[in-house]
């Protein structure tokens, strides 16, 4: 057997970011090899049929990528991509909401909240959803689908892409202060009802940025828009089937994607990334795969530098800064519930005028004090939840209720996933397994938490993954969190992976020929799928590695780095 092979580009990790990059690069005519450790590629974009007829999403569940240029550039429709639109049901839901004045998502201890007109109109104004002057897609592309500006460019309120969008479409939202604000502050200005603010706050937190973080009001709001943009409809077959379109696009363009191929080392020769060496358990053994042009690391930033490259090639200061990247973000306890018979919501959560089950919701949205207490628990005290169960804040993505093929057992209903944020296992007082050791207890806690809004006596099965388990299921998911590291100002845009690591700011690394392509290391982090590879393309073009065809278009807000080739078509 051939112990060595050579490709233009070698990509470590077949998660969504690595594989999408493979699709882009293969489409540019490069020979590409992706090496994935697990038997199935897809990273956290996976589905599991836990018991026959019940399909759950251990991680990604929603389509956050609606605004991505990739759908068009990679022509995903050709590879079978399609959505599971639930338009009719959503219309019914909207009608019921209009009639009752309640928002089904916004659950308080008193029942469903009723937004005021100002709540709704102003939020639409901020998010570009006002049908008379829509700009959501542009806003999202500006926040996520644009590489950070090059180091020589001073970042100002004038050149930040999303600020440009506001200036153009909603000039009265544009202020210098916007760049300093928290989402709470922005909402205090525009939104009236506290429960509605809490709904947005929670969704934003779960979608990448917290409502109390300084200076990321708009990126925080963007997280919710990503979700709203496709009305939280999932792809047909679940998120993994969206991934199928990506991987098939890559393969159709000639990329080789191998599973059961854990990478043990990124080979550095003369200061350049020259290829990778596989672990001895790899399907074909400890093979070396050379990269003629570049190695892309689609795995987390800590593993990339601390394990795959190692101290030998890096200075101590750099190593320390990598070690210090905080895992605090979104470590998440995920539960999935199977009900025999329809879930029965408590009377105060009924949405009159529809037979629909609410399905999705955030609870309890009463006030931000509850949220702050929750935060203190997780990031302050770093302990297993000490919140009384009535107060623990959760998001129920219960979307599966409206997707019949997610649960095909007659008479059974799936509420899945239910999320509660907990501390990263690495920082947990009591050790990384402190929560896992009492999993039965925490499972019951999750049931009781959900039980605040519905009857739980007809739950017949529950599956859960703790952050510790998530991290093992998928070694890329450091901290067991869903966007790896915080999308706070110190770790966002030009500052990602964090402000102390400027050498990694634009997907490049101190090692020639090594580029980053993972949510933990790259702007814009997790969720906004296809953003990292699209943004990275600009950089690879700048470095003269690829020349895409006519199908390529760069971000309109992109600024080329001096002395490099511009990614704008000539």
């Amino acid at each position: 057997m051939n112990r060595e092979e050579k490709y233009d580009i070698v990509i470590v990790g077949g998660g969504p970011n690595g594989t999408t990059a493979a699709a882009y690069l293969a489409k540019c005519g490069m020979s590409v090899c992706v090496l994935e450790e697990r038997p199935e590629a897809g990273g956290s974009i996976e589905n599991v049929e836990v018991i026959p007829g019940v399909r759950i999403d251990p991680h990604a569940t929603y389509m956050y990528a609606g605004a991505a240029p990739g759908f068009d550039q990679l022509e995903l429709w050709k590879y079978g991509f399609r959505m599971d639109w639930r338009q009719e049901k959503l219309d019914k839901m909207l009608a019921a909401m209009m009639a009752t004045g309640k928002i089904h998502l916004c659950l308080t201890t008193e029942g469903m909240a009723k937004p005021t007109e100002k709540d709704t109109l102003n939020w639409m104004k901020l998010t570009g959803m006002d049908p008379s002057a829509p700009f959501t897609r542009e806003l999202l592309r500006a926040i996520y689908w644009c590489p950070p500006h090059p180091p020589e460019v001073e970042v100002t309120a004038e050149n930040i892409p999303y600020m440009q969008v506001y200036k153009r479409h909603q000039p009265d939202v544009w202020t210098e202060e916007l760049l300093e604000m928290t989402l709470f502050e922005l909402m205090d200005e525009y939104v009236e009802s506290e429960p509605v603010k809490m709904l947005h706050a929670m969704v934003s937190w779960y979608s990448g940025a917290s409502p109390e973080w300084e200076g990321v009001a708009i990126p925080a709001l963007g997280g919710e828009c990503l979700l709203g943009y496709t009305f939280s409809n999932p792809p047909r077959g679940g998120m993994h089937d969206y991934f199928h379109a990506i991987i098939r696009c890559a393969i159709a363009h000639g990329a080789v994607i191998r599973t059961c191929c854990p990478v043990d080392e990124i080979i550095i020769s003369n200061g350049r990334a020259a290829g990778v060496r596989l672990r001895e358990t790899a399907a074909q053994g400890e093979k070396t795969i050379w990269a003629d042009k570049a190695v892309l690391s689609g795995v987390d930033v800590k593993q990339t530098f601390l394990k795959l490259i190692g101290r030998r090639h890096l200075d101590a200061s750099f190593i320390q800064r990598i070690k210090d990247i905080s895992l605090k973000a979104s470590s998440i306890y995920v539960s999935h519930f199977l009900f025999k018979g329809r879930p029965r919501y408590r009377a105060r959560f009924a949405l009159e005028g529809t037979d629909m089950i609410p399905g999705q919701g955030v609870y309890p949205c009463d006030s931000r004090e509850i949220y702050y207490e929750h935060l203190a628990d997780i990031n302050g005290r770093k302990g297993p939840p000490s919140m009384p169960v009535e107060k623990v804040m959760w998001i129920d993505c219960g979307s599966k209720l409206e997707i019949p093929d997610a649960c095909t057992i007659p008479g059974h209903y799936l509420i899945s996933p239910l999320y509660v944020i907990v501390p990263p296992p690495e920082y947990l007082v009591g050790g990384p397994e402190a929560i896992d050791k009492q999993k039965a207890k925490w499972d019951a806690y999750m049931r009781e938490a959900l039980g605040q809004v519905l009857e739980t006596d007809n739950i017949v099965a529950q599956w859960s993954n703790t952050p510790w388990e998530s991290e093992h299921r998928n070694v890329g998911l450091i901290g067991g969190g869903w966007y790896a590291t915080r999308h706070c100002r110190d770790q966002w845009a030009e500052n990602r992976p964090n402000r102390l690591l400027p050498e990694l700011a634009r997907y490049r690394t101190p090692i020639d020929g090594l580029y980053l392509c993972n949510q933990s290391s790259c702007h814009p982090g997790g969720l906004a799928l296809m953003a990292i590879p699209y943004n990275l393309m600009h950089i690879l073009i700048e470095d003269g590695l690829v020349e895409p065809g006519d199908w390529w278009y760069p971000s309109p807000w992109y600024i080329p780095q001096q002395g490099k080739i511009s990614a704008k078509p000539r």
Partner: protein
Amino acid sequence: MVIERREIFQEFPGESDWDVVIIGAGPNGLMAGAYLAKAGLRVALVERRYEIGGGLVTEEILFPCYSSNAHVIYHMMVDYMPVLRDFNLDRHALVWIKPNAQTAMVFENGESLVLAQMLEDTKDSIRKHSIRDSIAFGKVMRTWERVVSDIVAPATYVPPASPLDLTLALQRSEIGREMLEITERSPLEIITDTFENERVRTIMLYTSCMWGLDPRETGIGFFVPLLLVRGMNKCYCYGGSHKFAGALAREIVQAGGTILDAAEVTGILTENGRAAGVQTAEGRLLRSKVVVSSLDPKITFLELVGAQNLPEVLKESTEGWKYDKWSFNTLHIVTDEPQRYACDDPWVDESFMTVFGFENTERLLAHWDNVISGRIDLDNFGGHATCESFFDPFLCRMPGKYVSFFQMHAPYDIEGGWEVRGEELKEAMLAKWQRAAPNLKRESIVKSVCETPVDIERRLNMRRGSIKHGDYNPTQLGYFRPNTECSGSRTPIEGLYLCGASMYPGGLVLGGNGYLAANKVAEDLGAAMWWKPTPEMERYVKTYFD
């Protein structure tokens, strides 16, 4: 507040045009697709599940962190499948593992038997029980191995000949005549005539009939050499069986084919008596020159084409289609260590498959008789077990853990129903397994889950949990599978072909059904056949049919 969807992104179209639409992306659909796509045809595979693979399913059913081969694990035809020669699946890091110790059987008193790839190893093990049988085994294998390598294995990839033609053809050679002679006898007769020792008979009977042969049925005897010889040549797919499916899917996509998952076919379109495409549950229409179905004839003809659109003869023979006589009930577990069986031979622990629960043929036959009539006697049952993690580190995501399963034959219509009996049976299986492997302590079981026949039906639409899409009996085998109208891939409905386990050569991952269908479709559509028969196939055709 309604956003026009088209503004968001383009999706796979509501209507599309293809040369070939294949229903079901199980091993057979995938293989047919791989050949035809590479032949330059525009191919679409339409699969009901969110994931391709059909029986090639590796799923995290011990959620979270532990995956299992929920269905196919033992690959018996790896040495012969044309698909593994015609495609370079190496490129996708597809690797087969073939342990020497293949099938073990342990008995209550700690005695054991091991069937190994190396003939003398097997004879060593048999000799413990009967010197005569070990000699008999060596002798009979001389014939049986040739029956398999010269005839049955290559014939798997050649369209079925009518019984008369086949009989005439086989008369031509000594080995052919031997095979004809074996065929006349029942598995039970063959085995009791060949071996004297009850333990030896029991393992031989189990190995040759475990896939659904009736031990007392005559006219199917050639399956004994086939399943015994191939049963001693099983391969494991490193990383789980789904990797095989993944490799085939990559070949399809690379050659320009398209795969639609989460797309249940709800109807096969016919126009002027010709198949013209398929309709999916979400309302998409895929028009095509030909439709190839990997589903069983009842689903294909009665449900998807519609009984009213069938020629009377076809309708009748389809209605007469019999599903498998039994299904599987499988207990999957995660433990802290692999099973160590209480027996006299350490090789048992390394065996790919370990059978227990049966002391003699009488007990084994009684168990199978029970199963066929819908019962399981908790005092007399058994099955086979494998510790997958013993061969494959990729299934467990937590260090130091092992996944294993214990699989038994079980009726679809169990007395009392699976919902009621499932838990009781799971307990009984666990107890039985623990008796055979005492280190399997309850405390060491991290997780467990059962996949019942009803579950099999639900996961893959294998009706009544029929793992071969239909019974093996003389009227549903060889040339008669699924019926004379559809023998050899084509059906009486022009443009409609069959490629699944319900056609010749039958169930399991043989690599034949999809291959044969691809040959017919390519021929009928005038596509370039870029592949050639394997040397074994050529030799077989030359010897017997020239």
